[in-house]
């Protein structure tokens, strides 16, 4: 529980700070590459924009992409898993489709989708959530299979409950702990995936600052002006560690709940 609270507090702190400072920044040639100072704690980037403002904007945009991705991933994978475990003949098709997706590395798949559909926030969200929902829907469908075969389920059916009621009142709620745990893990993975895509220049539009994009811009000057890269890297580190803390705290909660 401590872990979850700690992670949530850090995330909220970061979010509120970045709301305060959020701005795209103004280009000014006289301030190019200025080092951090008291008034501008992160310094200026290669075009003379205040890095603090840009990093805050980037934090917000990267976090929102991660959040959207994880929501979509959960929705897509719940729908997939239900389709696969309740549609007749779905099992064979599921297995083949899952295996074929498993055989394409996730990052390759999202690059390919970005290639075919172009970049921009909706397409990137689609690419990431599409490629990350596959492994999760596999997990969910195996949970559903287990639930279908459980004694509780047969007993409920024996009592004369309809299939639909059993599904909505018993099978679906049993998925929630997995979803809760996976939500933050997907959040973390899609956050990392988005920043890697933006680092390669294939993420959001180049006019929207993201953490990966700022790092990519500062990468060429890493040896001369390391502050351009270091601050966004630190922010990425803090965000991913707090997400990891939350997800592991949730997992601990789940496992202690199961043991009882």
């Amino acid at each position: 529980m401590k872990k979850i609270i700690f992670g949530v507090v850090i995330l909220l702190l970061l979010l509120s700070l970045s709301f305060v400072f959020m701005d795209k920044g103004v280009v000014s040639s006289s301030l190019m590459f200025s080092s951090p100072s008291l008034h501008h704690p992160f310094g200026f980037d290669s075009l003379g924009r205040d890095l603090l403002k840009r990093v805050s904007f980037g934090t917000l945009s990267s976090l929102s992409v991660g959040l959207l991705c994880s929501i979509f991933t959960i929705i897509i994978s719940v729908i997939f898993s239900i389709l696969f475990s309740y549609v007749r003949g779905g099992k064979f098709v599921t297995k083949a489709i899952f295996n074929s997706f498993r055989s394409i590395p996730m990052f390759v798949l999202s690059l390919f989708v970005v290639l075919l559909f172009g970049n921009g926030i909706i397409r990137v969200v689609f690419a990431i959530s599409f490629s990350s929902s596959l492994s999760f829907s596999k997990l969910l469908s195996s949970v559903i299979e287990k639930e279908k075969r459980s004694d509780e389920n047969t007993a409920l059916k024996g009592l004369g409950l309809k299939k639909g009621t059993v599904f909505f009142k018993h099978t679906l709620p049993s998925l929630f702990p997995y979803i809760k745990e996976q939500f933050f893990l997907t959040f973390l993975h899609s956050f990392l995936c988005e920043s890697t895509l933006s680092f390669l220049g294939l993420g959001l539009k180049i006019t929207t600052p993201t953490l990966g994009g700022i790092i990519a811009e500062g990468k060429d000057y890493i040896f001369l002006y390391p502050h351009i890269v270091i601050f966004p890297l630190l922010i990425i580190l803090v965000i991913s560690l707090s997400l990891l803390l939350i997800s592991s705290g949730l997992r601990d909660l789940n496992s202690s709940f199961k043991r009882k």
Partner: protein
Amino acid sequence: MQSLCKKIAKSVISHTITLLFTSIFVFLLISYSPGNINDAIYSEEISSTLREEKNGILINYFTFLKNFFSLSWGESLSGGSVKKVILSSLLVTLLLSLFSSTVSLGISLSLSLASVKKRGGSLDRTVSFFTYIISSLPIFLIALFLIFVFSFVLHLFPSGGYTHIKDNFFSFVRSLVLPVLTLSIIHSSTFIRQSREVLFENSEKEFSLYALAKGVKRKDLPKKVLLKPSASVLFSLSANSFSSLLGGTIVVESIFSLPGLGSLLYQSVLNRDIPTASIIVMIFSIIVSITYFLSDVFSYIIDPRVGVDE
């Protein structure tokens, strides 16, 4: 022996089906995506006539398959034969991924075996702490950090570039050290966590209690008792992480400017070169399927119980 052959045949069939599904998926994505290359290159008239010339979807699919397997991959948008470029860069990626997977498997197996010896001990805690942090980092962060330390501060290895193995063996090795290190750090951080969990799970089972009661020392337990029953799971886990390692080669190759498949895919995505990219995706999926198949075969040989009930 006969059952082993039967299992292998089954696995071959299932992986072929998998590859067929992948090819259908790639084909559908290419032919129904909004970004048709003909629209980008030609004028509207020509591209619309080209669209009308299309045969039925099945015939198109079979020509796609036939072209893929007969290695007639055509010319890329930037000119030059796709086959030549892809085959030469395939070698680089294969070398890179094989080196880094062997390095990381070695590191992670030895570390997880050592940390299983004493659960909650100092080694176990440091290992789990570092793997925890590293696995939550994006791969480019580690690459930039390694470049900063090893090529900017220490001047030990080049920060990029690739020398062919025939030209100069020593600089070939030097150019691969940092990419291999980056990939194996990321790869081993996830693999250690998974394999540690598997080994711990087995160490709590009855057979290890029995082995302890029969007089196996606790520090010999991981190597003597736990390794063999966990092997089949470890094989499939390593095949799984090999696929994510291949995904990581894209970033690593483009940061260290190695002429591999990953950076070729990246370039073709930047140039919107769909034919090349689709062939690269197919090749990636073939490589991954082969590793899954090999891991299946190894786990069948080591553990005869695997794959029986299906």
